[in-house]
């Protein structure tokens, strides 16, 4: 599976973003290959329907679990309809969150 953590900066060491669609980047971990990618969120300053656009992008990236502080209602609808899971966390570094989740899925 592919886990995306919404991140306040561009590095895995940066904190989780409290708003999914407006985050600076997504740290995306492929749990099968162990490959970690940092993808800048080029849509974050959009004016209209940003949540839906970001959700569409994550869907196309093959993400199956989205971790952030909060997901807006429209983006949540896209995730729900597409069968993608969401997880809300209040704080933590993206790298710590990903390694913990990976351990949970491995065990």
């Amino acid at each position, binding site marked *: 599976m592919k886990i995306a953590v919404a991140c306040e900066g561009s590095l895995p060491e940066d904190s989780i973003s409290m708003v999914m669609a407006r985050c600076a980047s997504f740290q995306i971990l492929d749990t099968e290959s162990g490959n970690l990618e940092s993808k800048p969120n080029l849509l974050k300053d959009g004016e209209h*329907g*940003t949540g*839906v656009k970001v959700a*569409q992008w994550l*869907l196309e990236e093959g993400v199956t679990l989205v971790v952030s502080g909060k997901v807006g209602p*429209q983006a949540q*609808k*896209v995730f729900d*309809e*597409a069968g993608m899971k969401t997880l809300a966390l209040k704080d933590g570094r993206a790298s710590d969150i990903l390694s913990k989740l990976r351990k949970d899925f491995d065990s």
Partner: protein
Amino acid sequence: MIIAVASGKGGTGKTTVATSLARIAADKLSTDICLIDCDVEGPNADIYLKPRISGTKLSTQPVPVVDSEACNICGKCAEVCAFGAIAVLPDRVLIFDDLCMGCGSCVWQCPENALSEKDHVLGEMREGSTSTLAFAQGRLEVGRSRATPIIRNLKKWQIRPERNAWYILDAPPGSACATLEAVRDADFILLVAEPTPLGLHDLSLLVGAVREGLGTNMGVIINRSRGRDGPLEDYCLREKLPILARIEFSREIAAAGAEGQALDEVMPQIRQTWEGLLGDIQ
């Protein structure tokens, strides 16, 4: 002649001023007067004017619908949508009616002709009259978020050159799209301001938006005035905004407003102020 009553901050007395001014204008002027309540998120001018409603009309906007038989999930519609109103899932297309602006690009560009348009109801518009003036009002449907198109539709419906009337528009609060849509073609904007820090702050945002975007002439009515209104008066002086009237801070006026009485019913002397103002605008 179109006079818009606006404020920046909410609750400063726009409707109080607009309805009372409309009543006096209908008495004094020989032209027809029409009060249009453009505050579609919280319309309440009817409380003060008590009009008889004679007609209603739905305010709608086109939104796309997918023919799932014809759609092959190519994704072109989501790609061309500037408003994020369409998401393309592996097996179907999701449309967000409330994000759609009705531009029609998706329908035009669908290679399979799988999209058509239906009317999405944004709200309702009503028209009617009192014994002296015409009245119209827009009302945003509960759960909808887009006030601007209703205000546009309401004005298009009511403001017609052959009517040869004076229109007094009760604008929504704020300084964003809905407010600017309400005031955009006004000949004069009456700003109702209260002498508080927040009142002044929001007033200055609206003044800035009007000056930058429209250039309409404006004047200020100070509501809940305590006589000397320090920072607000200084601001008006600095910005060369004439102070056209003051309404005193009074429990009696507030109580009458809560009972649905028009301002000139509780404060008859305001008639002279409104008559002078109408003469000046004329």
